[in-house]
């Protein structure tokens, strides 16, 4: 069951991850995370989701890149 402190922490997690909060706020959040297993779990899930996001890169093959580049320069020539 989440209490007011949990809701306040969750609301500020994003700012916390961005180092966008005052030192005092960060300390409050860290204190709450140490004490609250549920919020610690939420924080960890959020971190994992973002890690997955960063890792899941899409790539072009060398051939595709070459074709795209050729197309761009062909279109430039036409202009």
């Amino acid at each position: 069951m989440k209490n007011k402190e949990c809701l306040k922490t969750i609301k500020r997690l994003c700012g916390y991850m961005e180092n966008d909060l005052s030192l005092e706020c960060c300390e409050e959040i860290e204190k709450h995370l140490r004490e609250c297993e549920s919020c610690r779990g939420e924080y960890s899930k959020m971190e994992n989701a973002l890690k997955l996001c960063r890792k899941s890169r899409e790539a072009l093959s060398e051939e595709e890149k070459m074709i795209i580049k050729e197309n761009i320069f062909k279109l430039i020539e036409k202009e």
Partner: protein
Amino acid sequence: MHLNNKEFIEKFKSRDRETFSRIVEEYSDRLYNLIYKMVLNRDDAKDILQNAFLKAYKAAPSFKGESAVYTYLASIALNEARERFRKERKYIFFDLDIIDSEKEIPDISLEKEKETMKERVNVALGRLPETFRAVLVLKDVDGLTLKEIAEMTHITEGGVKARLHRARMLLKRMLENEK
């Protein structure tokens, strides 16, 4: 020569082909990834990438140099992707009213059990409304700063932070639901 070097930027602005060729080589991969995560379709992403480079080349003389070359390109690519969203509407899955209901995130687990990590992320991204997805992709996929995103999207930094928070919460829940 560094790509944000003054001399390099001047050459880019004068549409020097060699300079532009280097820009295309340097940024194709990163831009493609950014665009793909917005439209989630290979052919569309390649098409948008090509158009974005072309637009950037044409508009190069008006590049003010206030932002980095990459941010300028990403901004054009993002607008192209958004235009595609609006024209085709095929990428929008549900509206904000549903998002605002805490319990109604669709369960996407059933058919997706064996998908790879990349596919899992893409499915979750595909369920985010465009404005949330854009901010999340720019920040957490592409690594731009809040300030850069605010400039690119014409939203205040506070607005970017609020959307990013919402987008991350939604992404987290979608990836959880999917397990």
